[in-house]
């Protein structure tokens, strides 16, 4: 498995150094923890600040995130990208705060499980509760293969300078926009967008086979 950058589950220089840092934290090394906090508090704060009314609220959520990380250490897989993992905890703590403060009345999920324990384990996209992750165990391998295939395609496009293709596929897959809207946003022809989508789905199928998520994309074409 390979990837263009330090994201995803791909071992890299950065992931290795983070794994060492996490190992030192696991052993109770206070200096390592100080280094970790110094490295990550700024970006966590920048992530949360725009969503809450005061800096104090944001700092409280960052604190909860860091504590959540420490509590989740026994189950953290150091091959995972650390910042993605931390942001996932932060998003979870933030949505919990928003819910408690009446900003998401339609959203009933909580950051504690049925026994009041915090849900800090993250191994897949979307919902983060361990109860949900259990239902995904059978899909985890497909998901990893899909992530690796996507990373491979994106790396290739970046290396070849195919930025317009990347923009097009990102709007289609990540934002879920329709072909005509992607075409209008990027100043491309609708047929050109459809072709890029078709080619990408074909490449994904070649790399990962008939994974349901890819088949659904194909259906929607």
């Amino acid at each position, binding site marked *: 498995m390979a990837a263009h950058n330090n994201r995803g589950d791909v071992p890299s220089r950065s992931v290795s150094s983070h794994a060492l840092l996490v190992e030192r934290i696991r052993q109770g090394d206070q200096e390592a923890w100080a280094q970790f906090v110094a490295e990550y508090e700024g970006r966590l704060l*920048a992530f949360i600040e725009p969503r809450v009314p005061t800096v104090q609220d944001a700092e409280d959520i960052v604190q909860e995130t860091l504590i959540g990380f420490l509590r989740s250490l026994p189950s953290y897989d150091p091959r995972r990208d650390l*910042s993605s993992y931390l942001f996932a905890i932060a998003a979870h703590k933030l949505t919990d705060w928003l819910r408690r403060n009446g900003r998401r009345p339609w959203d009933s999920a909580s950051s504690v499980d049925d026994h009041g324990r915090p849900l800090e384990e993250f191994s897949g*996209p*979307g919902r983060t509760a361990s109860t949900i992750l259990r239902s995904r165990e059978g899909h985890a391998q497909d998901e990893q293969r899909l992530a690796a295939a996507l990373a491979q395609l994106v790396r290739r496009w970046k290396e070849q300078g195919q930025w317009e293709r990347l*923009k097009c596929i990102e709007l289609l897959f990540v*934002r879920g926009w329709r072909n005509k809207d992607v075409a209008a946003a990027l100043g491309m022809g609708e047929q050109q967008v459809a072709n890029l989508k078709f080619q990408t789905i074909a490449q994904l199928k070649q790399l990962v086979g008939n994974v349901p998520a890819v088949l659904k994309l194909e259906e929607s074409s």
Partner: protein
Amino acid sequence: MAHRPSYISDEELLAYREERLRVEDLARIEQALRESRQLRERLAQLVEEEDRGWYSVGAVWRAHRISCPDRDTLAAYCCGALPQNEADYIRFHIDVVGCRLCEAELTDAQRRQQAEEEARATPRRKRLYESSLRYLPSDR
């Protein structure tokens, strides 16, 4: 880039739930959810599907940060050291795709750069002030 669709896609609803969109988009979706029962039902249905183990290509892309630039690339972007095409893409990834994680990483990188500049500037200002002070006209 002016064009934005008027609808809210399923991927956008999922990204809203994951706090993975820019604040303006989150506010727009929050407002739409308050106003539309149909949209709330759609969101509930998507959550139910996720609970059963379903995931979309978009969800995997977001969770694994497939196209997010790494920290070094963002730092180079901050300094204006990237080729134009790549810099354009990063701006697009943050402004149009709405990657809030990269936006937060960028904000942090910019703040750190400012702090470093401030740390360098403070002793320089003090030195310049002190070395020029004796030329200041004296009080009358």
